């Protein structure tokens, strides 16, 4: 591939403080793993004039557990997260999602903040983070603010971050006693972009859905929670007919498009099939129904 990269000004930050200082000037585009950005530049989708390289920011690469929450540095490489025992144990949905992302080579350079900030409707780390009600910490030279991830995504490649800010950390509450299920439907079994991805977490107490969380990727302009379906189920008896009825309502939560990967019609069908599978399995997990 020999596309001509447009010319740009380049700076490399050695630490977070320096990075935020540069960002203060405005108009700097952050370069992390570059696995989205550089490709975008090669096909002319983006042509930033100024690039700030944050690959050296080791201080953004960590995973910490504290007070029932996990704190993940935005610069963490996907492969590091995949190999992290805490992530695997406490955030099984995120771990499963990353397992199915890209390839070993890409995961070794790609960062989690990059995946979120790129805000593709197909960003695979998004559905799990939406399920966990994760929050993102956005930092600038004048301080930090925290946003729920559901408010962070605004649309295809649009987020609530400003050009002065950097995604420093992701705060992820863990879920205890939940059934957790993740499925990435791609066009082959590895190294592929999602046609539909689904993450589900639920709890059933005394035969009643006490909590249901559903997040979906690639079926709307941004990764979404299927609140309608969730609300249809919460407080209801966990049985096949309730599930089938509720799943039909997913049409109110998603708005898939037809593209080269699949038709909207197929995405609808697949979403419903996946949700039913997850919910039936959840029901079984808690000892209910025959599925």
């Amino acid at each position, binding site marked *: 591939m020999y596309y001509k990269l447009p010319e740009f000004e380049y700076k490399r930050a050695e630490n977070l403080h320096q990075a935020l200082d540069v960002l203060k000037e405005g108009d700097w585009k952050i370069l992390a793993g570059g696995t989205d950005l550089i490709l975008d530049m090669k096909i002319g989708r983006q042509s930033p004039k100024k690039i700030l390289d944050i690959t050296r920011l080791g201080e953004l690469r960590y995973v910490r557990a504290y007070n029932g929450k996990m704190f993940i540095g935005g610069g963490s490489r996907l492969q590091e997260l995949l190999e992290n025992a805490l992530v695997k144990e406490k955030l099984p949905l995120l771990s499963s999602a990353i397992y199915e992302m890209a390839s070993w080579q890409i995961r070794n350079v790609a960062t989690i903040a990059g995946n979120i900030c790129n805000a593709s409707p197909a960003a695979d780390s998004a559905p799990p983070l939406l399920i966990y009600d994760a929050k993102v910490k956005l930092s600038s030279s004048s301080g930090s603010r925290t946003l729920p991830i559901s408010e962070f995504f605004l649309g295809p490649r649009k987020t609530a971050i400003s050009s002065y800010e950097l995604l420093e950390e992701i705060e992820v509450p863990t879920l205890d006693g939940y059934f957790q299920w993740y499925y990435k439907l791609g066009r082959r079994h*590895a190294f592929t972009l999602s046609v539909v991805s689904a993450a589900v977490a639920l709890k059933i107490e005394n035969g009643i859905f006490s909590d249901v969380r559903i997040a979906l990727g690639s079926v709307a302009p941004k990764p979404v929670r299927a609140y309608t379906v969730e609300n249809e189920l919460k407080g209801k008896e966990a049985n096949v007919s309730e599930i089938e009825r509720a799943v039909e309502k997913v049409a109110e939560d998603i708005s898939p498009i037809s593209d*080269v990967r699949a038709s909207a019609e197929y995405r609808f069908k*697949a979403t419903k099939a996946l949700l*039913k599978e997850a919910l039936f399995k959840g029901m079984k997990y808690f000892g209910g129904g025959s599925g």
Partner: protein
Amino acid sequence: MSSTDLERLMNKWLSAQEFYVVGKKVERADTIEKALGIARYMEDYYMRDMLVIKQVTSKYPHARILSIDDSQAKKVKGFLMNITAKNIPGENQVGYSIPDQPLLADKKVRYVGEPVSLVVASDFDSALEAAQLVKVNYDPLPYVLDPLEAMKRNDVLVHEETGSNIAFRTKVRKGDVEKGFSESHVVVENTYRTSHQDHIYLETEASIAIPNLEGKLTILSPSQYPHLTQKIVSRVLGLPASSIRVVVPYLGGGFGGKDDQGPLTSAKAALVAYLTKRPTFIEYSREESIAVHPKREATVIRYKSGADAEGKLKAIEVEIVHDTGAYANRGPFILWRATMHASGPYVVPNAKVDGYCIYTNKVYQGSFRGFGNPSVQFAAESQMDVLAEKLGIDPLEIRLKNILTPGATTITGQVLDSSVGVKEALEAAALKAGWKEKRKAYSSMEGRFRKGIGIGVAWHGISTSRGVPDWSAGTVKIELDGSVSVLVGIVEMGQGSPTSSHRQIVAEILGVPLDLVHVYFGTSDAPDTGATHASRGTGVGAIGVYVASIELRERLNSLAAKLLNTDPEDITIVDGVVRSKKDPSKSMPWKDLVKSAYSKGVSTTSSGYFFLPKGRFDDEMGQGFAYISYSYMVTITEVEVDTELGTVKVLKTYPAIAAGKIINPVQVEGQIEGAFVQGMGLALTEEFKFSEKGEIINKDLTDYVIPTSMDAPEIAEPIFIEDRFKYGPFGAKGVGEMALIPAPSSIANAVSHAIGKRVTHLPITPERVLKLLEGR
């Protein structure tokens, strides 16, 4: 040596029963280099002072070129020149079957992606930038994209001079199909569709051209036939072939794509080197490769078959339409092969087959592993299952009732005198797969996940067709120290012919240790060995070195007999030891024998040549001698279908091959595995989507989906039926393409079995599966 002497000697080796390297799982010469990543491919030969070439390609499916303006490109610092059709000193004509294709578009473009000019610059960035700045002014013309529509229209012509969009027609007329159908108990008719497929070789097209003294050129060319590259370059430059030297490095995959595009890529590098007198480098990006180079043809095949109550085939009537895109390229040959193989490996008394190769304003079609055969075998093999179902016969039984056996006659009226092992292959594969039990068990599966098992059987004529001359040649030279240099035109593109089977053949015949044999391959310095295509790299490609070695061995036997005081028939040479059979105490080392040859005036060089005897073919009736020999392949495949998501998982396949003597079982196993997985791509995921303007939308590996190792099923150890071919080295036929040919049929038949609906359209995407299940 007279040709009868030669045939007598070849027969002697053909009947050999004991081998010391042939048939053994020996390691190939390039294993370590490749495993360590030190093997050099085209790109690795790039050097900084080479000029870089970038293609400017058409943005229109059909348009007249009004002017080409490079005034903006000139402003780029490293820019040197923009070369167009006008700069070509020789002929701007590179069509392989019909002279319809320019190297660089002249006056008109016929597909989005067609090369229009070559931007030359001192470095990559400048070449890229300048290529973006070349402005081509077009006058857009009406265009046709659908082959069925193009067939009927004469108002929009891809090539005006032809007066029609039908580039080529083929036919077979055997017996009386009407009579055949009237005698049939069941007649079934279906229309099958298959999609374009890209080779997606890891290494995209590239070439280096270096001007030498005396106006000569040396070209490094990842192409499958060095002598064809030489010929094309010589035509484009108007230079004698002998002033062009072609060397083919290791290819990072060929699959037929570099048989077509390799010479053209080199012609571009050579053209610039010739005009600038400087070394040049061209390499396609992946997107460029997909946009520019020919694909496996998309097809529409209407297939009608009839059988009697017992399941014996009575007649077939087939219409094959190939979408050849903008240029005929090898399309007529591809169509020809599809037509002659339309029956599948079965006896069919009455056959009528019509083939149409149709121009459209899309990327053109070309050679791809299987060469027109996978799609038609998919149609033929689906029909067998449909007939079996209608007749209430097991799919295995109906095949065995009709299968070709020695002495059988093909639909072109060719009698297959020997080397027809397909029946044994099918029986052995069915047994190993547990066909009967599984077929029964899976038939009653219900619920979301359903399994299916399907058979695919295929035949494939080896090497070129009809009376098209075919030969093999190669030089073997024994050096004074006893090591052996072998010179052939066959290339190494992953399959290992020159680095494995050629060495084994030479070593076996001369009796030298394998590690003393070194093959210099893929160069126009070697005698023209023909192309490395059509599964001929070993079965035909090695006949030259086989014959050369046989001749040398005769000389050495005579010399050894004198030295050991016995007669030539009494000499054995095995693994570097020369011995008398009668008196094993009489022996000498190989190296001493070679030294004696040098001192006693026995020539140690031999150039082997063999011209394949062929028969006549009547194009009017499509009857006669079609191929010198056929290889046969069976795959029995198991799948699991998720009936809610429509996804297909290939679980396991059982391959069996009848390809004559297997020179190296490990290499053959590798070819079978790779070909099967490539066939899986054709069957399940690979498909190009075209825009309204005929531009490929998914010209990248994000959205053109080939299988990964995670998708590959378990592939059982292949069954070998060694039905020796009389002219092949030790009786070897061809292997390279084979497993790809029945793979799609076996998968489609398995999916049809699993879901109880007939698959007629490849690839079998989840959406298509759901539509079938919903009865749409």
